[in-house]
Each structure stands twice: as structure tokens, then as C-alpha cells.
């Protein structure tokens, strides 16, 4: 087997693995987990009837979504209305392509050993690709709000676009600090740097906090879930969506949450690495995947925990926080990291 062919096969296998795990196993699990965690926090049982511990509840829900009538409002812009859920979901799951989810897996094939890095695409613009994709994902929400021909949806769409623009800035600027220390935009190198030195969260705690909070805003999770604030906007941008199209928004939200958690782990918490442990060989590769999954899982839990604890911001307060607090702070963080890097080099 030629190396080229092997690479193609390996890439295919990795794509199948990541998307399979994320879409088929993780998202339904996550929705189940959200509901169980919510129930735990709220002192009630939660879904516990379908399957062991209610694990198959999401499956039942998915079937329900397939069976439901798909309603398109009469005065909606049909083409964009149908396109919007795709624009939300596809970028959300595509972001997983650049996240290193483990060390490298040695594969021996035909007497030849290949070292397969556990990342789908090691793109040299790395995180730029990620930001680009999340920005595209917002169009889904904006278009959904705009084309539904519903005032509540429209307000949701407006809120969303304003929110994402504000927080993307702070998020991007605080992430620059990470790439300055690592000296590369490629995420595997960011992980490698943290493995050799120290997790970025320690020297760049300010940047990490800004990044994490902005990630909440980017994923429309409480306390920043203004686009779909149910008490004010009924259901916000997806008020008019039903059946499978609604399910796509729903899945998109959770996929975004997983992606954001994975990115937080990769940028600030050492990715798949643990200090003092070298992940070599097949066992090491599998262990590194487990470490990565555990860390991501922890952050997902924090996402859930926060959602069921905090009230929601108001639109103008959200803007104030983004522009007047986070943006200056992230610039400050950038300066601080620049000084740190300069001092380290000198």
C-alpha cells in the first residue's frame, strides 16, 4: 500500500471515527446528560424510562422529530428557511476536523509502520479555520430569524448576530496569546508546547477566563442564550421551525458546545496531554484519547452546570460586557503575553 493511499484511508477512518463518535454517540448522550444533570440540580428524576437510566430517550426523541410534521410558514422565504438549519449544523460538526483528539497511533501495515497523528486535518491556519467556521454558523441563526417572517424570530436573529460579533473579537484576541507563546497557529503544536512547558491556563489565566466565557456566548448557552430566550422571544430564531429542521438546530447547538469545550481544552488545558506522562504506542494513543475525552467532558459538564444555575443577561448588558469589559481585558492580556514572550526570549 502506498503511503498516499494509506493517508487517504487513515483520514477516512479518522473522519468516520470522529463524526461517528460525535454525531451518533456523543450528541445523543450529551442531550441525555443535559437532561439528567438538569434533573439532578433541580431535584427531580429526569428522563429515566427509555432504556437503562433513560439512555435511549434521545433516540426516541430523534424518531419523534422524524415523524413530526414539518411546517414552513406561508410567508417564509422557503429556500433560505430550509437552508438555515444546514448552515448551523454543518460548520458546527466540521470544526472537529482540526482538533487534535489524541497523540499519534502507530499502525503497522504490510511490514511498514505508519505514525498516524490523531487529528483529521492538520491545517496550518488552524484556529483561523475554526473562527471562520463558527462565524459561518451564525448565518444559520441570522437567516433563520430573518426568513421565518416572525417578529420574535427576527429579534432572536438580531440578538444573535450582535452577540457573536461582540464576543468573537474578545475570543479571538485572547486566543492570540496562546499562539504567540506556541509560535504557531497549528493546534497540534499548541498542544506540544503545553506538553513541554506548562498548560497555558497557568500563565494566561485572564485569557483563559475570557475565552471560556466568550465560548458560552458563542454557543448561545446561558447566561448568554438571548437569541432563544424563551420567556421573551418565545423560542427566538427557531420559533417557526419544527420536526427535523428544529432537531438540526438543536444538534447544532450541542455540537457547538462540544467543539467549544474541545477547543478550550486544546488551547488552555494541554489538549490530550497530561504533565509528566508520555503517550507512546497504541496504548498511549488510546489513553490520550481518553484523557482528551475526560477533559472535554468536564468542560461540557461546566456548560450544563452553568446553564441550570445562572439567570440570563439582558441584551444591552451583554453588549456592555462584551465591548466594555472583555475586549479591553483581552487586549490587556495580549500585551501581557507579548511582554512575557519578549522577556522569555531575551
Amino acid at each position, binding site marked *: 500500500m502506498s503511503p498516499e493511499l494509506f493517508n487517504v484511508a487513515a483520514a477516512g477512518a479518522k473522519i468516520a471515527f470522529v463524526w461517528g463518535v460525535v454525531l451518533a454517540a456523543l450528541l445523543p448522550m450529551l442531550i441525555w446528560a443535559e437532561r439528567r444533570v438538569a434533573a439532578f*440540580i*433541580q431535584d427531580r428524576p429526569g428522563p429515566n424510562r427509555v432504556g437503562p437510566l433513560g439512555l435511549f430517550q434521545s433516540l426516541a426523541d430523534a424518531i419523534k422529530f422524524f415523524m413530526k410534521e414539518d411546517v414552513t410558514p406561508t410567508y417564509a422565504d422557503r429556500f433560505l428557511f430550509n437552508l438555515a438549519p444546514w448552515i448551523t449544523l454543518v460548520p458546527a460538526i466540521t470544526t472537529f476536523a482540526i482538533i487534535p483528539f489524541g497523540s499519534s497511533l502507530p499502525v503497522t501495515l504490510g511490514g511498514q509502520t505508519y505514525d498516524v497523528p490523531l487529528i483529521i486535518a492538520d491545517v496550518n491556519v488552524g484556529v483561523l479555520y475554526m473562527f471562520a467556521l463558527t462565524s459561518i454558523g451564525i448565518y444559520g441563526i441570522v437567516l433563520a430569524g430573518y426568513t421565518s417572517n416572525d417578529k420574535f424570530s427576527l429579534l432572536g436573529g438580531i440578538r444573535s448576530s450582535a452577540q457573536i460579533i461582540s464576543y468573537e473579537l474578545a475570543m479571538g484576541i485572547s486566543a492570540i496569546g496562546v499562539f504567540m507563546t506556541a509560535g504557531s497557529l497549528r493546534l497540534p503544536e499548541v498542544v506540544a508546547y503545553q506538553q513541554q512547558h506548562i498548560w497555558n491556563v497557568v500563565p494566561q489565566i485572564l485569557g483563559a477566563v475570557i475565552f471560556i466565557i466568550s465560548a458560552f456566548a458563542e454557543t448561545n448557552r446561558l447566561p448568554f442564550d438571548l437569541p432563544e430566550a424563551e*420567556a421573551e422571544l418565545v423560542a427566538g430564531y427557531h420559533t417557526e421551525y419544527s420536526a427535523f429542521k428544529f432537531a438540526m438546530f438543536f444538534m447544532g447547538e450541542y455540537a457547538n458546545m462540544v467543539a467549544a469545550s474541545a477547543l478550550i481544552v486544546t488551547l488552555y488545558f494541554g489538549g490530550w496531554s497530561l504533565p509528566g506522562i508520555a503517550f507512546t504506542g497504541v496504548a498511549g494513543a488510546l489513553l490520550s484519547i481518553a484523557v482528551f475525552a475526560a477533559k472535554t467532558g468536564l468542560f461540557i459538564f461546566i456548560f450544563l452546570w452553568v446553564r441550570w444555575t445562572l439567570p*440570563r*443577561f439582558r*441584551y444591552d448588558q451583554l453588549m456592555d460586557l462584551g465591548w466594555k469589559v472583555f475586549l479591553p481585558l483581552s487586549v490587556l492580556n495580549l500585551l501581557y503575553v507579548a511582554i512575557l514572550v519578549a522577556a522569555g526570549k531575551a
Partner: protein
Amino acid sequence: MTAQTAAQPAVSFAPLLEKKFGGAIRPEPGPKSDIPTVGCDAATLKDLALFLRDDPNAKFDLLLDVVSIDRSRLPAAMRPRDGHRFGLSYLLYSTRHNQHLRVRVGVPEADPKVPTLVDTWPAANWFEREAWDLMGVTFEGHPNLRRLLTHNGFVGHPLRKDYEASQRWLCTEEDLLKTELAARTEVEEDIFETMTLNFGPSHPATHGTLRCVFRVDGEKIVAAESECGYLHRNFEKMAEEHTFTQVIPYTDRLNYCSPMINGNGYARTIEQMLGIEVPPRARAVRSILAEFSRIMDHMVCVGTNLVDLGALTNFWYAYQAREQIYSLLEACCGARLTSSYARIGGLSNDVPANFADWCRTLCREIEDELKEIDGLITKNRIAHKRMRGTGYISKADAIAYGFTGPCLRASGVGYDVRKDAPYDFYDEVDFDVPVADGGDNFARYLVRMEEMRQSIRIIEQLVKKLPGGPIVSDDYRVVLPPKEMVYNEMEGLIYHFKVVFEGIKVPPGEIYSFTEGGNGELGYSLVSDGSGRPYRLKVRPPCFPLFAAFEKMVIGGMVSDAVATLGTLNIIAGELDR
């Protein structure tokens, strides 16, 4: 039974009235337990209103209710001297002197007009609209005299005695509100600058069938108009067709978050009119369950309000407590939501044997739930940001708009019927009336939280000294006699027959009786003609003036603030629309 013309509490400023208005104002007699009444003519009404509001000896700054009555079917002995068909009673309260007063005006049938008092008390706005809508009394100079509880396609005035109740009117989709709103904001229907946002009657944040129409600039509200009546079933007309006892189940449907309080208030009204003694055990149990109901009411308010703010979890903590209280109510009377527990003269049956212990355990559980909510919200910065300074109403405005209860107390006026005109056992227990100065959503939240703690204090004291004895009066002209008596004794059977078939004979007269409801002063104005049915029963729902002021409170804020404000005002549609 009391003599009808017994001495009434004197009007302290009566000489002043005499001096200023001469013979135009006359004190009118009424039952002993009623509030003092003065009568006047439509011509002097406006001057009298101003005098009563502004004179330091009177200072009736709070308009509680406007009660309209059609006197055409009253027995001859009760007909007013002026001979006018309609009567209007303005119920006033003085926050300075802690005094109630009724101003009664006769309105002729031929030209049913009185000057509006909206300029004197802004609260009169909706009360007068209601009186016009249901009774057909016109208020000259009223800024917005339109249908309020009935719909635009309605013909006639249903509370008039000659209204044929079997008529049906078609409700068409006349969107009068929209055009009116556009006129008020002085902007054309321009989608690029502002838009009209319809909010309700079925919107997740309205918690009932309320409707508001906002004119929004972005998310900022530049004009607002609220509308009610979607749950109107004319409780007051129905009451006229039922015996006094049969009305009790209807009272549960007023404020369905705290049905016990409504039932108690109603039963107390009739008891006052009858002048019968309620056994102390019944009064104590009524107070205990009323306090539990108050906790439920506040729990519903706080819980759902926090849901509107996005803090969903508190809803379960609040409702957990509520469910537990329902279980207690169920053990007492068999029903969870619509308890119908109160009877005229006491309660329908005795409480379970473990009542006292149950109450104590419940208090502990409620305290735990309160602690959870406290921990999540009271010091939370986001909650502060959302609630502080939003939905603000000043002390003066709150009084002018007729606020009572927690919402008035959150604006800095410590009026609480339980303290200022104690009934049942409230003068024998020790509790505080929490008052906040903020006048905003956060102040209302804090007041409600503290009131729940005070309610627990009241319950604990009452449970400690829960008296024994009968749970219901033994006056069989009012209360159904026990079954053994009905089956074995002639008198028993006759009493039973009389109460069931003819209803309780309440002596003729008019009374205003008020208790502290979950949301403020819950008043019943009753006119009895001596028969077994109420001649006219008017409820003063505490959230009616609150919702009337809502549109004023939200203008200038964001849509999210309007949602938070609606939540802290705790508008209960069942009570609002009756």
C-alpha cells in the same frame, strides 16, 4: 344578627366636610362592621374627591375600587332616597390615617353620567372602564372609555339587572389596539424605525391570558398598551344567580394560586354581614392555611419570574414547596388546587390529627427551598443587573395607581391589612411587615422572599396555640346541621332544607370586607337584599390596578425588562378578569 343602623365608626373629618360642602355631603348608615360611607351628588363628586385626597385630615390617597350597582331590583325599603337607578361606590384608603371610606354617588337612569376621577386618582382609569363596560355608567372626560373585560363586539352591559344573560355576541378580529398605539406614538407604521410587537395573550411570559402590545424601537419599548379580559367569565354575574354558599367554589377560581385566601375573604364578608361568631379553631386554621397559600402565591411568583429571567432551576425549588403545601390542603379538604374549604361560619371539616406536626415539617421544608433560591439569586450579580432599577414605580405613583400588597410595600408603603386592620388571629401573633424602598423588580422580589419567612413565623406561632373545639359555627340558620340531626329531628331537617334550597338569609345592606390576599388587598363589596343570593358582589382583585399600571412601568425599558416586571407584579388572570 346585627341591627342594620347600628353606630358606625365615625368619620373623623365629618365636621370639615359639613363646613366645606354643607348639605351636599351626607354620612350614610350601614352595618356596624362596614366602612364609613358618605353620599354625594355627581355635581360635587369632583370637588369632594380632590378634598378627600388632599386635605391633611382626610388624605385618602389610594383609590381601592369603583363599585357599580344597578338598584332597580332592590326591595322598596332599600331604594335610595335620590331614586336613581345606578349607584357608584368609590372605595378609598388613607395611607396616612389607616382608614377606609366609601363615597356613594347616585346615577340617574336617563343620563348615566358622572365626571371621571382619573385626574384625581390614576387608578380610576381601569376601574371606571370596567364600570362602564359592565354597568353602562359613562364617565365624562375619561381618556379611554372602551370595553375592558368584554370584547369589542359585545352589545349591552351585562351587570345590569335587565340584561338577558343568554345572549351571545360574536367576537371578531378587530384590532383596535394596534391603530390606537400607532396614534399614540405619533409615528407612522414604519417597519424600518419601530415595529409593533404583540405580546400575548398566549406568550410564554404572560403566565395566563394577558395581552400587551408594545411599540418597540429595536428592543426598547416606546409605547405600550395592555389589555385584559381574555379569561373573563363574569364571576360577579354568576354570583348573583347562586346562593351564598354556592359562590364559594367560584372564589377558588379568582386567584388560583392562593384559593384559600379568596374563600376565607368571601366567608368573612358574609359572616360580618350576618354578625355570627366563627369558632376560634376555624379562625386559626384559616389563618394558617391562608399563610401557606400566601407562601404558595409568592413561590409561584418568584419561581416563574426567575424562569423568565432564565434561571430555570428555581422554578423547581419553588414548586416543590408548593406541591408539599397542596398535599397538606388535600389532607384537610380533599382538593389540591380548588380547595373550597371555607364555609360561612367556619370550615367544611376538621383538619387531620397530625396537622400541627405536618405544618411544622412543612415550614422546615419551605425554609430549605427558600435557602436554595436565596443562594442562587439574592446575591447573584446577573440577577441584580436584571432586576435592580427595572420596572420601577415610585412611592407616589404606586399609591396613585392603587397598588396594595407586596408591590406597594416594595415601593416604600408599609400597608398590610393583617397589621393595619387585623382579622382572624393576626392581632395575636408577632410578625413583621417587610418594606423596601427600591420600587423596582428586585425590591418586589426581596419583599416576597421576606414575606414568606414571616408567614412561616406566623404559622409556627399559630400552630403552637391551635385552639380546640368545633371547626364550624353551630348556628344552623347558616351552617348545615350534622346528618344525625337532619335524619332524626324535625328542626334539623328544616334548617337543612332552608340552607340548601333558599340559601343563607343575609340581612339587607352593603358591606366592604377586605383581607390581605397574596397580591394585596382582596376586597369583597357585597350588597344583600335579604334574600338567599347576593344582590351584587364585587371583588376588588389586587392585581387589577397592578396590571393597569403595567404599561406605564415598562415604557422606556427593554422587552426583557417588561417580562421581568410582569413576573414580579404577579398578575393572575383568573383574578384580573374574574
